[in-house]
C-alpha cells in the first residue's frame, strides 16, 4: 500500500498517454466531467455514473445533540449530505487485495461443553485427577488441623485415597458428596466420611481402620461393576441426595426447636440412620456403630448455639434507618428493601410496636425505625429464619383478629 494522493493532473497524464491526446485536452475533459456531474447532482439530487457509482443528496433530519464539553443540549438543523455508493465494478476492483478471502463459518464451541467432557474419556480422567488432587489437598489441610490432638490417627484417612487401582474414579465418587456437605452450614449430621472418621479416631483409635477399609473395598467393588455411563448417573444421584439432606437439616432443626430440645439426643439418634443410608449406601455398619458416640459429642453442643439467634429475645437498640410512612408505604416493602425479604416485616413491627397499633393500618407520617438486626436472624438463605418470621407473622395476625373480635 502506498497511500499516495493523486490529483486530477495525474489522471489526465495517464489518459493522455493511453489515448494519445494532449494533456490539456485530457484535463479539460476531466474538469468538464466533474462540472457536469456537479450540475446534474444539483439539478436532480442524484447522479448515476456507470463504472464509478451513484452520487445522491440525502436529507438528514434535524436532531437533538449534546455538547460534550458543556453538556448543553442543542439542535442540529436538518441538512443535506452527499452519499456515494460505488458501482459494482469499482467495488470489486478496489477490493482486489482481499478478493480471495471468503467468509468463514467459525466452528462454534458447543454450548453443552459441560456435557461433552463426560463423553470424552481422556478429558474426564484429566478432570477427575485434577479433582482428586484438590481433594487430597483438602484432606491434607484437615489432617494438619487434626493431628495436634492425636498424631497417630492421620495415616488411616490418607490410606483411603492412595492404594486404590482407580484413584480418580473412587475419589470422584465419594468426595463430591463430601464437598457438598462440607459447604452446608451445619456439619453435624455427619453423612460425610471425613468428620465421622476423624471423630471416630478421637473416640476410639482402635476402631479407626474399620470404616476406611470397608468404605474403600465397597467402593472399589462398586466401581468395578459399573460402566462409566452408569457411574455418571450415580454421581448426579449422589449429589442430588446430598443436596436433599442439606436442605432437610435446617428443617429438622426447626422441629427440634419446636420441641424445645428436651429429647434432642433421642431425635438425633433416630434421625441419623434415616439420612445415612440415603447418601452413603456404601457405608457399612462399623461407622454406624460409632454414630451414637458422635451424636453425643458432636451434635448436642452445637444445638443451642445455632438457635440462639432465633430464640433469644430480640432487642431493637441499633438503628439502621428511619423511614417516614407515606401513602402507599408498606412494612413489607421496607423489609424487602432493608433485609431482602418481605417476611421480615415482623421485626420492623416489633421494633415499632409502640407507634403501630395495627400493622395493617398505619397512619401516614408515622416515623418508622428500621432496626439493625442480627444477620443470623434475617439470613434469607436459611429456611429456618423464614419459618420463624412467618410463624411470627401468623401469631401477629391472630392477635390482631382477636383484638378485632373483641
Amino acid at each position, binding site marked *: 500500500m502506498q497511500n499516495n494522493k493523486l490529483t486530477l493532473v495525474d489522471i489526465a497524464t495517464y489518459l493522455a498517454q493511453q489515448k494519445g491526446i494532449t494533456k490539456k485536452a485530457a484535463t479539460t475533459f476531466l474538469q468538464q466531467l466533474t462540472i457536469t456531474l456537479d450540475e446534474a447532482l444539483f439539478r436532480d439530487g442524484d447522479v448515476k455514473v456507470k463504472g464509478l457509482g451513484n452520487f445522491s443528496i440525502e436529507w438528514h433530519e434535524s436532531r437533538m445533540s449534546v455538547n460534550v464539553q458543556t453538556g448543553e443540549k442543542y439542535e442540529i438543523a436538518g441538512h443535506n449530505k452527499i452519499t456515494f455508493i*460505488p458501482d459494482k465494478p469499482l467495488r470489486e*476492483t478496489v477490493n482486489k487485495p*482481499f478478493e480471495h478471502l471468503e467468509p468463514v463459518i467459525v466452528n462454534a464451541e458447543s454450548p453443552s461443553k459441560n456435557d461433552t467432557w463426560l463423553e470424552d474419556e481422556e478429558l474426564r480422567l484429566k478432570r477427575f485427577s485434577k479433582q482428586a488432587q484438590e481433594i487430597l489437598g483438602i484432606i491434607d489441610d484437615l489432617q494438619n488441623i487434626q493431628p495436634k490432638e492425636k498424631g497417630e490417627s492421620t495415616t488411616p484417612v490418607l490410606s483411603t485415597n492412595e492404594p486404590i487401582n482407580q484413584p480418580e474414579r473412587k475419589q470422584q465418587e465419594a468426595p463430591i458428596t463430601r464437598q457438598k456437605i462440607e459447604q452446608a452450614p451445619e456439619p453435624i449430621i455427619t453423612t460425610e466420611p471425613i468428620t465421622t472418621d476423624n471423630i471416630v479416631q478421637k473416640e476410639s483409635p482402635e476402631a479407626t481402620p474399620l470404616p476406611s477399609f470397608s468404605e474403600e473395598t465397597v467402593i472399589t467393588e462398586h466401581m468395578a461393576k459399573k460402566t462409566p455411563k452408569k457411574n455418571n448417573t450415580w454421581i448426579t444421584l449422589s449429589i442430588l441426595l446430598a443436596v436433599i439432606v442439606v436442605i432437610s437439616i435446617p428443617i429438622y432443626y426447626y422441629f427440634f426447636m419446636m420441641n424445645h430440645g428436651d429429647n434432642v439426643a433421642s431425635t438425633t439418634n433416630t434421625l441419623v440412620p434415616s439420612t445415612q443410608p440415603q447418601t452413603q449406601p456404601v457405608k457399612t455398619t462399623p461407622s454406624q456403630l460409632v454414630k451414637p458416640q458422635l451424636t453425643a459429642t458432636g451434635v448436642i453442643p452445637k444445638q443451642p448455639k445455632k438457635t440462639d439467634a432465633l430464640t433469644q429475645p430480640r432487642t431493637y437498640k441499633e438503628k439502621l434507618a428511619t423511614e417516614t410512612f407515606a401513602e402507599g408505604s408498606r412494612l413489607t416493602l421496607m423489609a424487602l428493601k432493608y433485609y431482602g425479604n418481605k417476611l421480615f416485616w415482623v421485626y420492623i413491627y416489633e421494633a415499632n410496636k409502640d407507634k403501630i397499633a395495627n400493622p395493617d393500618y398505619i397512619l401516614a407520617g408515622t416515623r418508622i425505625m428500621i432496626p439493625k438486626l442480627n444477620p443470623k436472624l434475617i439470613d434469607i438463605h436459611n429456611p429456618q429464619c423464614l419459618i420463624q418470621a412467618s410463624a411470627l407473622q401468623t401469631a401477629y395476625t391472630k392477635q390482631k383478629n382477636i383484638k378485632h373480635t373483641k
Partner: protein
Amino acid sequence: MAMTHKELITDLSSKLPFSENEIADLLDITFTKMADEMSEGNSIHIQGFGTFEPHRKEERLTINPRNQIRTLIPPKQVAVFKPTQSLKDKVKEAHRYAK
C-alpha cells in the same frame, strides 16, 4: 430523473471536441484507472469536487442471532467519496430533494 450514462456522454461530447464514442472510451479508462489506484491504496483528489479514497474495513466476527452460527467476515477495502468542504457547504444549503 437522474441523469443516465448516455445523457452524460451526450452532454460531454457537446461541450468537448470529442465524439460520443471517444467520450465513452475516456470515461471508461478514467474510472478503471481510478479503481486501480484505489485498489493499491492511493486516493484521488479532484479539486472542487472531492476525494475518492480506499478504506480498509477490518475483519470481524458476526453471530447469526437466529441460529448462533458464527462467521468470520474477512477484511475488505471499499471506495469512499469525501466531498470537499465547498461542495459540502453547497449541498447543505441546497433545497430538499424529493425522493
